[in-house]
């Protein structure tokens, strides 16, 4: 028996297959991680191009470059693509690359499932984007697709949209099963749960959130499908249904979804800040508990998106209080990051710049979130640009910056080549200035009364909208520089060492840069050492 295995062993240390089949058939976590990340990068430019169309239309009052109908399609698909096509796949890509390397596992637990969860994703977005070329145009009812605008009054392509959302959901659920199985079963000996790197922790909790809420989204779109094609009246007032039910179901998915897009960012930023502070993370235990409590609270705050639907006052108050509670674990995280920097030995390479910007600007997004939680004040904020400013602050300089930081931080490890530090810093400063130029004035126009999702606006909002548009164009262009920096590193970068960063801790840094195609085939033994990172 053992002879057979050993005989097989010799030709087992092969590299990747050649050609396109390497990517189509791959079950390797590193390849699949790269696929996810490149997919997300491409979608970032597609969704970003839509944002450019939106900002061009809003550059001045009056109709500019597109019709109101196409504008709504842009708004809808920009949201869907950025949420489901950029932020989520990027985090799954990072999970694929990093979780096995950080816990000392040879690969993900379910490699074939892994291949499937990636490859159905381009199919889903292919279906979604194809609707642009169909009769009736692409979905135009906002990424929140409130019924009955998305059912009785939707363009015929809504059925393709429903199908696409189902596939995206299936992909996420399979990815999450894989992450949970890997983390719970494949940690190196000696790595107890409370010694896991924080990125692994954040993803373990995120994966549970995904498994809990993706089926709820699937349920919501299935009910839409039934209403549209099979004569049911889940959301049809005329048939005895309830349009508000849709919002409850959607936001029961939607609010945990918001945290799905930020928890892995917490993990990433924790690693980067400790590395460049050359000091262990402050309050590891409270960081873990904070992520867990944010995740639990996310299930009981959903109706704060619905303060104006006419809930009874008890509901308004409950959802106001529960939402305010989230500020506590979030505040703990921010203070822990600052305490990690306190008395450290700080250097400011590109990943650290993005991580610091994350903490600063995420704090602004968090504080505006606290304002939005105050139900009576939300009567004035709701569905204005103040909300648009808030969620873009947590998603762009929040989630997106953390992903960019992660790419700079781990790119030398993945590719074996250093990026150009000067260009990286240039990219940072351009992004930092333009992201604020884009999203900060949105607070002002929102408070002054500009509703969201309108293709044209009253004269008093003109000045700030022009500033926002200029900021947005600059931010969009800056991301082309990001693409350039990544490509330059891959093709012309200097060789990176295995350690890469002076202060980096964790198993992935014990590997070569780039790591072999298969790593940790024998798990490292951590019984003696400290694995916490």
């Amino acid at each position, binding site marked *: 028996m053992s002879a057979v295995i050993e005989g097989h062993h010799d030709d087992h240390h092969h590299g990747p297959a050649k050609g396109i089949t390497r990517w189509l058939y791959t079950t390797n976590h590193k390849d699949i991680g790269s696929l996810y990340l490149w997919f997300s990068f491409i979608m970032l430019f597609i969704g970003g191009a839509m944002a450019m169309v939106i900002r061009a239309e809003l550059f001045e009052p009056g109709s500019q470059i597109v019709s109101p109908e196409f504008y709504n399609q842009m708004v809808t698909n920009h949201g869907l693509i950025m949420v489901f096509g950029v932020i989520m796949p990027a985090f799954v890509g990072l999970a694929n690359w990093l979780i096995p390397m950080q816990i000392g596992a040879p690969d993900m637990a379910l490699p074939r499932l892994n291949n499937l969860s990636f490859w159905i994703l381009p199919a889903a977005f292919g279906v979604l984007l194809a609707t642009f070329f169909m009769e009736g145009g692409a979905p135009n009812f906002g990424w929140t697709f*409130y019924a009955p605008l998305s059912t009785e009054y939707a363009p015929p392509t809504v059925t393709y949209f429903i199908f696409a959302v189902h596939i995206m959901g299936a992909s996420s659920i399979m990815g999450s099963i894989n992450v949970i199985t890997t983390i719970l079963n494949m940690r190196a000996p000696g790595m107890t749960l409370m010694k896991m790197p924080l990125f692994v922790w954040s993803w373990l909790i995120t994966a549970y959130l995904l498994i809990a809420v993706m089926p709820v989204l699937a349920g919501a779109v299935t009910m839409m499908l039934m209403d549209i094609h099979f004569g049911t009246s889940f959301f049809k007032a005329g048939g005895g249904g309830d349009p508000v039910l849709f919002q409850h179901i959607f936001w029961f998915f939607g609010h945990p979804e918001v945290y799905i897009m930020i928890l892995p960012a917490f993990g990433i930023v924790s690693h980067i800040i400790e590395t460049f502070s050359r000091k*262990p993370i402050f309050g590891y235990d409270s960081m873990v508990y904070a992520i867990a409590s944010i995740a639990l609270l996310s299930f009981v705050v959903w109706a704060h998106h619905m303060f*104006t639907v006419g809930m009874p006052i008890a509901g308004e108050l409950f959802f106001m209080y529960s939402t305010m509670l989230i500020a506590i674990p979030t505040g703990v995280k921010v203070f822990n990051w600052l305490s990690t920097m306190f008395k450290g030995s700080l250097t400011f390479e590109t990943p650290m710049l993005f991580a610091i910007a994350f903490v600063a600007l995420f704090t602004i997004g968090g504080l505006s979130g606290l304002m939005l939680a105050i139900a009576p004040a939300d009567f004035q904020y709701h569905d204005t640009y103040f909300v648009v400013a808030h969620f873009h602050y947590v998603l762009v300089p929040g989630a997106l910056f953390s992903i960019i930081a992660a790419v700079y931080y781990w790119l030398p490890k993945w590719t074996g080549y250093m990026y150009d530090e000067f260009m990286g810093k240039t990219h940072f400063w351009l992004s930092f200035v333009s992201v604020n130029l884009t999203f900060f004035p949105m607070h002002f126009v929102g408070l002054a009364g500009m509703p969201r999702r309108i293709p044209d606006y009253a004269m008093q909002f003109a000045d700030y909208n022009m500033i926002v548009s200029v900021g947005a164009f600059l931010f969009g262009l800056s991301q082309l520089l990001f693409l350039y920096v990544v490509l330059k590193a891959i093709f012309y970068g200097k060789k990176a060492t295995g350690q890469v960063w002076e202060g980096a801790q964790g198993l992935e840094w014990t590997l070569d840069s780039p790591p072999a195609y298969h790593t940790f085939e024998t798990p490292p033994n951590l019984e003696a050492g400290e694995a916490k990172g």
Partner: protein
Amino acid sequence: MYLKKLILCLTALFLAPLSFSAWDDINMTPGVNAIAQEIFGLHMTIFWICVVIGALVLGFMVFLIIKYRKKEGVEPADFDDNPKLELTWTILFAVILVGMAIPATTTMIKAYDDEEGDINILITGHQWKWQYEYMEDEVSFFSNLLTSLDARNNIAPKTENYLLEVDEPLVIPVNKRVRFLITANDVIHSWWVPDFAVKQDAIPGFINTAWTYVDEPGVYRGQCTELCGVYHGYMPIVVKAVSDSEYKDFIQGKRDLKAQQALLTEKLWETDELFAIGEEVYLKNCVACHQVNGAGIPPVFPALAGSEIVMNDKGRQVEILMEGVQGAAMQSYAEQLTEVEIAAVITYTRKAWGNDAGGDGEIVVPKEILDYKNNKL
């Protein structure tokens, strides 16, 4: 020209917070009644708390960045927790939150008060206009965007109230408790007047309530705030608060108008007369979907030019105008338009764009619409 504007804007961005007059343009409106002002006060309280917290956090961060940058010979500390300190700030956060929750709760209770009003107005959201019905006086009318297509398409100049002007504003009396009963006819809309701090979703199948009490006569403007389809950005709200006597005149005027319009159905109409009125009605109510040239935006908004129904099936066309089309954007105009207007607009569509030549060319007179209504009863 853009460059000059841009420089102006950038200057404004940095100077705006400094000059007091500009402050109003970038902040919430203080509102015109007690509850709106209380919500404004609450907003400013939380705002300043958040500014102070934000300034402390960002300030501390800048301090850390300057003070602890890597230096030769200075070793980083290696502590990694401090449970007492962590517990302290956790409790501190909780205390601040309780401090915010108390005023928020009292304001919330005041805002949420659905006692009956002196005047009750049923507000119905339609794609893309508001309908106001004075429940006690049985007066009802629609409020449409007034801004012209030319202004929206940058052909005509934009006036001060661009996109915030309507043909028929909602008129309410001052010093009376006005209760709004808010619902919708098709998709979800949201009725928002910032000066009253009233934002309430208009949902088909539900009736939400909101109320206001205005002391000062004036004109207050707002917009729909829930994405409700293509022309979501083009259904503003204008509320005119007037003295009690002016309000009574307004209601009486509306009643007289209704009586006059009923008489007009008896009149003998010329085709040209109907065609002229019809063109006006069409441009105001129909062009958004069916377009000026009657081509529509298929498949969502069908073409009228060359349509079989419009050319040869008068009965069905009347029915569509009166009942709407189930499951499509086409709504019933039976209440939105008078008998004369409906007859005129049908006549117009049957004569315009060459439909006259291609079809039977029959016209519809107001009496026929009245008969349709009466037969239904």
